[in-house]
């Protein structure tokens, strides 16, 4: 098998797993979550990451789909082996700007892994927004995993000034989520590169 170094259990090229911060809202708690998640991924020997802020993408509101591609965003998605979406729950759904950005690509996502991290003010940690995003992921050609990130009571979970995590249990939970995403990313990279459709 040439896409994996089975002796070390590591892929020969590091995985690239960007984190998308899915809201432009001023004062967003999701930013603390995204920073925490990106730091956890960056600490993994087998993966690199980059934080992508939907606020920083130059996507016009006057059109939709691949017609509005941001070349840098699309290039980053092309390079990615997996994605992590940090998504606040807005009226039980996802922010429109995240969907606007995701819809600007397609081939960049095909057969890549995605993990979703929900963020909410309420007690459910964005479980409803995660469920609502799953069918969208499928249609974008992304492959979902069975772990999610859940950050309920987001305002109380991070120090609002420093962004420091105040609930240490999230470290271990997120580790399980990233473990599964890394596994799926390795398998799908092998599949994209080596397993042909008949």
């Amino acid at each position: 098998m040439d896409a994996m170094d089975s002796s070390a259990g590591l892929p020969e090229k590091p995985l690239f797993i960007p984190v998308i911060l899915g809201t432009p809202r001023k004062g967003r708690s999701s930013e603390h979550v995204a920073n925490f998640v990106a730091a956890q991924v960056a600490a993994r020997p087998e993966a690199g990451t980059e934080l992508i802020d939907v606020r920083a993408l130059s996507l016009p509101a006057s059109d939709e789909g691949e017609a509005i591609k941001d070349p840098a965003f699309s290039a980053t998605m092309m390079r990615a082996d997996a994605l992590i979406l940090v998504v606040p729950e807005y009226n039980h759904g996802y922010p429109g700007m995240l969907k606007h950005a995701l819809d600007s690509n397609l081939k960049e996502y095909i057969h890549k892994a995605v993990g979703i991290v929900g963020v909410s003010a309420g007690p459910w940690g964005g479980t409803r927004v995660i469920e609502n995003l799953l069918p969208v992921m499928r249609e974008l050609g992304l492959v979902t995993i069975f772990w999610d990130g859940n950050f309920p009571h987001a305002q109380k979970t991070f120090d609002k000034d420093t962004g420091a995590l105040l609930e240490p249990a999230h470290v271990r939970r997120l580790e399980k989520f990233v473990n599964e995403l890394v596994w799926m990313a390795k398998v799908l990279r092998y599949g994209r590169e080596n397993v042909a459709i008949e």
Partner: protein
Amino acid sequence: MAQREKLKCPGCGGEMNFHAEKVDYSKALADPQSMDAEFGGALEEFHTCPRCKLTVERPATD
């Protein structure tokens, strides 16, 4: 089934792997000629280069 000829990667010239067929709705809107009425969008093939990670899309050949 007979093995199809491998697409050449536009980035490095290496052989690409054909790993997916999927409907692309956005493409059919941008290029109405590509619309496959049976699927409601453009039926596309996706090929990935193992060397440079590039994925290219082209109309399905079936």
